[in-house]
């Protein structure tokens, strides 16, 4: 951030700063729309079985929990922080649900307990980041290991099954009258809520302001730490919820549920155009990224492309989504600096 912007009053800075950012977001999302279309055309060309309603159901089923976890992470990344413990929280939640259910708790009560523990785990992240001022990447790598470790202690190598079939059907049957998986339907509803909150409320504007200039936001009256803390709590809660969906989809609780998924979640958030440095991003972009990653995985599997090659493609997407927007922004800053000197 250049010095003249630092000293400028926030009120006059805002329109100057926000306008070009908005435009770049729109442009990134346009690119994503084209990428969605390209993926679908590619899929339809490469495999005769791609263009049918079963694909829609399977993509939704495979992406549901991941997509749900990407929503709170989007807000966290917009504030300039990160939460890498999402998949471990999913695993802990699945494990705890199994443990409580195995010990005679009613399934609904166990779900409530799991959600409470999820929020508490998120609060732990939030406390370490906002109260102790530790970097969120270090904190959440720590809790990534911690949550998974606790899960392993709770269930060990056991797996718990025997959940009511009316609930485990979410993994087999779409929402009646549609081809949408339940988890994906829930994601779409949540995405609308997050979209409204992030893009059309004071809270959303505060989240962007924190990501753009945390100190400026603080001095203009935004409760930076409280918002960050609550976002981590929200992330824990939502990931615990995703853990419940995951458990029901697999009809099984295991300590290693969702191992490694945090990378897919982060890929989706970044591919969605959310800046890893904070301050930029949109829910629409994340929704589009979910569709792209889901369709791409589906079509590559249908084409029986090697899983290793699929990993390379996903990794490549992640790199492109970090490099492209940042090169654009870097170029813009460079030009601005040249212009100022001249």
């Amino acid at each position: 951030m250049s010095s003249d912007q630092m000293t400028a009053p926030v009120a006059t800075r805002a329109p100057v700063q926000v306008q070009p950012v908005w435009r770049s977001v729109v442009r990134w999302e346009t690119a994503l729309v084209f990428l969605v279309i390209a993926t679908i055309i590619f899929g339809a060309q490469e495999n005769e079985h791609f263009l049918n309603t079963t694909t829609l159901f399977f993509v939704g089923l495979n992406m549901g929990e991941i997509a749900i976890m990407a929503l709170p992470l989007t807000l966290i990344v917009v504030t300039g922080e990160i939460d890498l413990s999402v998949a471990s929280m999913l695993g802990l939640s699945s494990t705890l649900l199994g443990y409580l259910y195995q010990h005679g708790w009613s399934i609904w009560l166990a779900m409530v307990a799991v959600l409470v523990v999820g929020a508490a785990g998120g609060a732990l992240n939030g406390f370490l980041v906002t109260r102790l001022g530790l970097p969120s990447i270090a904190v959440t790598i720590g809790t990534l290991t911690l949550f998974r470790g606790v899960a392993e202690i709770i269930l060990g190598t056991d797996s718990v099954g025997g959940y009511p079939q009316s609930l485990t059907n979410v993994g087999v049957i779409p929402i009646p009258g549609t081809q949408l998986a339940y988890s994906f339907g829930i994601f779409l509803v949540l995405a609308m809520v997050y979209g409204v909150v992030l893009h059309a409320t004071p809270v959303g504007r505060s989240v962007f302001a924190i990501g753009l200039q945390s100190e400026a936001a603080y001095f203009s009256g935004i409760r930076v730490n409280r918002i960050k803390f609550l976002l981590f709590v929200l992330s824990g809660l939502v990931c615990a919820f995703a853990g419940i969906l995951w458990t029901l989809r697999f009809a099984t609780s295991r300590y290693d549920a969702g191992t490694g998924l945090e990378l897919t979640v982060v890929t989706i958030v970044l591919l969605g155009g959310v800046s890893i440095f904070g301050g930029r991003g949109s829910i629409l972009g994340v929704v589009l990224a979910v569709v792209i990653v889901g369709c791409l995985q589906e079509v590559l599997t249908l084409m029986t492309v090697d899983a290793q090659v699929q990993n390379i493609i996903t990794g490549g997407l992640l790199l492109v989504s970090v490099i492209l927007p940042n090169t654009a922004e870097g170029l813009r800053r460079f030009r601005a600096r040249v212009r100022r000197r001249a």
Partner: protein
Amino acid sequence: MVHLRTGRGAGAAAGLTAVLLLAAACSSSSTSTPAASGGSGGTSASPTGVKKGLVVYFIPKDTQNPYEVIADKGGTDALTELGGKVVVSSGTADTAAAQIPSIQAAIQAHADAIVIAANDPAALCPSLAQAEAAGIKVVAFDSDNTCPNHLFINQANTEQIGTSEVDLLAKEINSTGQIAILSAAATATNQNAWIGYMKQQLAKYPNMKLVSTVYGNDDPATSLTVLQGLLSAYPNLAGIISPTTVGISTAAQYLDTHKDLLKHLHLTGLGLPSQMKAYVHSGTVKEFELWNPSDLGYLAGYAAADLASGTAKLDTGSTFDAGKLKTYTVLAPAGTTGPSVILGPPFVFNASNVDQFNF
């Protein structure tokens, strides 16, 4: 033994087995397969009634495990003989979640059968149920699942594998000393079943004490780390059983470069001859066991094709043809295992025979 489980007269079966062995010995292709005696009863009927153009999805635990690559190749051979096609599809991580897209792909491609080595005994059941609802026959191999309505191709009698590995080690260490197990994932169905029988068998050797079971997750780096931990925690360890090809080859490689340990430490388990050859000849490993993974995949391929054609059924005592491996009889469900067939007894490899095998 196989014969007792089929419920046929042991004498008649033994006679038939002898005939089969003789036939196998006379045919040039399969003389050296250790599992050739696995079939029992029936006449050596030619492939009948199997449909042409069948598509069978082989879904291994992951796409890189060399053992499963060989098994999948065996399945491809079987379907090629039958005029069908094998598609191999799985993830790179040993998780149930990574296998689900492959099951879905089989459903979407209207495959005739799925042959799967489950990474989790139960978590794939909803997806496999979807596949069955779509008319796809399911065969399990390598690692069984607890889902209904599938045929399990048992690589060898679970009990025999567990007990024979303990017996092999006992012979090498004079039935005395601390021993440990270096396994795959802590959740692996087959390894855990074998370890259960190992513990039972150890009761017969009061001077052998199992001090630890460690898990290398079928990953060489992890296996090496837990092995080193094991060796520093128990410096007087007399023996290690590693019932996984990744574990035993990693351990053998380590011991090969730390030969001082071999003065008191013996290693055995389940290994691939191609990987273990060098260590057997250098004296690091005396004996190890396995079945023929190529035959396992071949049998699974035939079973899948027969089930999809209606020429095999899940009913106890029904028989089906498995090409060069002759005829197999479906065994009754027992415990958590549903209908199954057994490939054959485990085969012991040592310096005298290991060079004959190229898998």
